[in-house]
């Protein structure tokens, strides 16, 4: 993860402040920074969104293309994720520096979306075993200001909400060969239901308290964080521990109560 170099005195300052429930920018331990979400920013995609969370800036584009369904699930479409940590975000990402982080984010996204209840992939199927919609979700990290996972999950949810998949009709010939016809009207499309798409909440352990939405400086002071993905109904779909430290079991249970 991108990091800043902090002196010992700055770390002590941050840790002591958090113990008093006061963070460097005046927030409480469970307050988020101001989030700005903008959809439909890129015109060449089927759906797009841009999220700004403090200094973190994420751009997500979704392109819907037709492909063959996977053999294990012939009646469903699927999603493919790709994360690009551009060198604009921080100088550490130059060349191949950002690949580890990108792989971690992609694996987490796959883990969340491999759940059947997250997105209705059966609606993405056109012809069982032959044609289906494949949604290529591309995440671009423009600026890295801490708390990447939360911002990315919000951006992906917004982009999927904004996605317009054109309606297709399947015509069958006498010999049985199928032809696909795209409707002429550009506004005739199906939208995805993103009610069940979860959002990620990252809780970082600093000192003996945990904070939500850590900035880069706070991330440098934290030993470990717990990543939880929560749906709007309050069910947890994914849990992961990040960071090189260890967590006390009691603090894990405390963190789960917070969400």
């Amino acid at each position, binding site marked *: 993860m991108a990091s800043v170099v902090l002196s010992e005195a700055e770390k002590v300052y941050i840790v002591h402040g958090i113990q008093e429930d006061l963070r460097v920018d005046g927030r409480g331990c469970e307050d988020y920074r101001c989030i700005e979400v903008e959809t439909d920013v890129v015109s060449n995609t089927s759906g797009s969104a841009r999220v700004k969370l403090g200094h973190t800036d994420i751009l997500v584009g979704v392109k819907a293309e037709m492909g063959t369904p996977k*053999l*294990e699930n012939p009646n469903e479409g699927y999603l493919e994720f790709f994360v690009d940590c551009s060198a604009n975000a921080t100088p550490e990402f130059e060349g191949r520096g950002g690949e580890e982080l990108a*792989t*971690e984010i992609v*694996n987490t996204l796959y*883990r*969340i979306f*491999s*759940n*059947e*209840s997250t997105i209705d992939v059966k609606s993405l199927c056109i012809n069982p075993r032959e044609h289906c919609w494949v949604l290529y979700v591309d995440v671009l990290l423009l600026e890295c200001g801490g708390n990447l996972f939360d911002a990315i999950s919000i951006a992906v949810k917004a982009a999927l909400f904004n996605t317009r998949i054109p309606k297709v009709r399947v015509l069958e010939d006498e010999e049985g060969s199928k032809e696909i016809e795209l409707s002429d009207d550009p506004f005739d499309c199906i939208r995805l239901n993103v009610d069940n798409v979860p959002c990620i909440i990252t809780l970082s352990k600093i000192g003996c308290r945990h904070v939500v939405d850590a900035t880069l400086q706070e991330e440098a002071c934290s030993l*470990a964080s*717990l990543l939880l993905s929560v749906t709007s109904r*309050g*069910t*947890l*779909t*994914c*849990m*992961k*521990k*990040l*960071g*090189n*430290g*260890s*967590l*006390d*079991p009691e603090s*894990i*249970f405390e963190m*789960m*109560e917070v*969400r």
Partner: protein
Amino acid sequence: MALDHRRVPGPEESQAPLLYAVPGEAGTEVPGREAASLRPLLARAGLLSQAEGSAYVELGGGTKVLCAVRGPREAAEGRGRLLCEFRRAPFSARGARPRPGPAAAEALAPAVRLARYPRARLELTALVLQDGGSALAAALSAAALALADAGVEMFDLVVGCGLCRAPGPGGAWLLQPSEAEERAAAARLTVALMPGLNQVAGLLGSGQGGPPESWAQAVRLGLEGCQRLYPVLRRSLLRAAERRAAEAAQPPLASKSVT
């Protein structure tokens, strides 16, 4: 007609025949299993002669993991680093050849005293020979055993435990699921604990687990399982050390060998 000897006379892509199997009598496997029963575990350290440390862990029911540690080697960077590689043998899972497994280096980092190895690099390779359920948990335990066997300074051993939740509302969490239970599961969780210090080193879960209370209960069950597995791993380390001492004292220079 000239024969093209470079091409294999067969289809370009191959699929496992299980994909075409009719899902019929799968369902009802081991119904009468106690949720908190642990499978028998075999752990043996110090079996590879070419690696500094090695360990082999086998869970009753077919999970086999082999782990080797090489190092410390000299590295260019200032801090000590632990490089983990988790691999699955291509024949390890039933069905098609799987993709590479997840990276769980973060679960082992809190246990190793990397500060004592500046400018050094520890390389750890874990190979899952057969996946009979809870492979990641077994791999974490094997990795910690191999590190200890190599003589790397550690705070404590890391014990891994896998859990899965049966499908259907109100499904119970099962400890150390078998492969069939894992495939049919609604949610999966792997917990890694350092039992001597009672610190959670790693946590990875996904699926439709339900409300956080159910996940909290699952984590508690996992931690209990880890505590119960700890003595087995310790004994295997002791036996490996005794074996090494016996071998070292074997050449008839001294009068008696220490047993």
